[in-house]
């Protein structure tokens, strides 16, 4: 099944577009940032592949000078019971990734969470507000340079 997905993707988007990894039967494809929505839509809408469920969408901070932030998409097909993982990377300065909430509407909250924790801006998202942290919070807690105990004074407590 993995080979079939690889073949399908290669024939649709060209030989050198993706970087494929396979580990213990799990297929991962690294997708160029500008093609992520197109690839997602193809994987979902192709009747043969039919990855209709976005199981999870999360961020990652590689803490590297280039391509520091990444977004990971875990897809699942209810029809073929197959899984695939997509990754795409963006730069530290002004991290922007196109939204896939137009493809799977469940991505709406997942992208808000990723924005809240990593500060990755999802371009075209209908309602990109913070999910967990207070609305006026100025930092991104899951970035590698955020201290474990937070920044003193950034989260106010009620008066005693």
């Amino acid at each position, binding site marked *: 099944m993995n080979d079939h997905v690889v073949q399908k993707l290669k024939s649709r988007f060209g030989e050198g577009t993706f970087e494929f990894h396979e580990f213990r039967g799990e297929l991962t494809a690294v997708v160029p940032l500008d093609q992520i929505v197109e690839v997602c839509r193809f994987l979902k809408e192709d009747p043969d592949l039919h990855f209709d469920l976005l199981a999870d969408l999360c961020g990652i901070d590689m803490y590297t000078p280039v391509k520091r932030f990444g977004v990971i998409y875990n897809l699942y097909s209810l029809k073929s019971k197959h899984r695939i993982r997509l990754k795409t990377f963006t730069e530290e300065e002004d991290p922007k990734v196109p939204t896939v909430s137009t493809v799977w509407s469940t991505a709406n909250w997942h992208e808000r969470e990723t924005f809240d924790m990593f500060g990755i801006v999802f371009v075209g998202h209908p309602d990109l507000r913070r999910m*967990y*942290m*207070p609305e006026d919070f100025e930092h991104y*807690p899951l970035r590698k340079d*955020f*201290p*474990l*105990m*937070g*920044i003193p004074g950034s*989260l*106010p*407590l*009620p*008066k*005693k």
Partner: protein
Amino acid sequence: MGLESALGDSFLTTKLEDAINWCRKNSLFPMPMGISCCAIEMMAFAGPKFDVSRFGSEVFRFSPRQSDVMIVAGTTTYKMAHVVRKIYDQMPDPKWVIAMGACTSSGGMYRTYSVVQGIDQFIPVDVYVAGCPPRPDNLINALMTLQQKVQRGESRGSSTAIIGGHQSNEPHPLPVIAG
């Protein structure tokens, strides 16, 4: 109540504060501030097996305006702290707070940016309960400890003028004690 048969035609004398505090300590209405898993043990504490009604605290009030003691049971995040404080502020004086469990007392295993490292940073706590989560017996023990404090007229959160008791040197007017 049987007291008549024991005492016959005689009578007892006591101080008004002592009588009021004796009444108060045997009818502490808890406000169940169940934020996370400690709340399950708090429910067992209220349920028939551990049966806190033996100590007069079976009436869990879901309105802060009708409660005497707030049992904060669970991990308190910075975001939730404002809610806890707001509910505490709505409770009428005199009032007490039990910090139930490791998270509530000290942040517990959540040594992280989002969790308040002990609720005494924003509300006065009368009794701390150790455990993760504490057994219901342990919470009953906390309640009994609190009853001793109530009998002595002590509260971290209420002024002594309102609750009466031995620690206050100033005479206080009668209606305020009753209120």
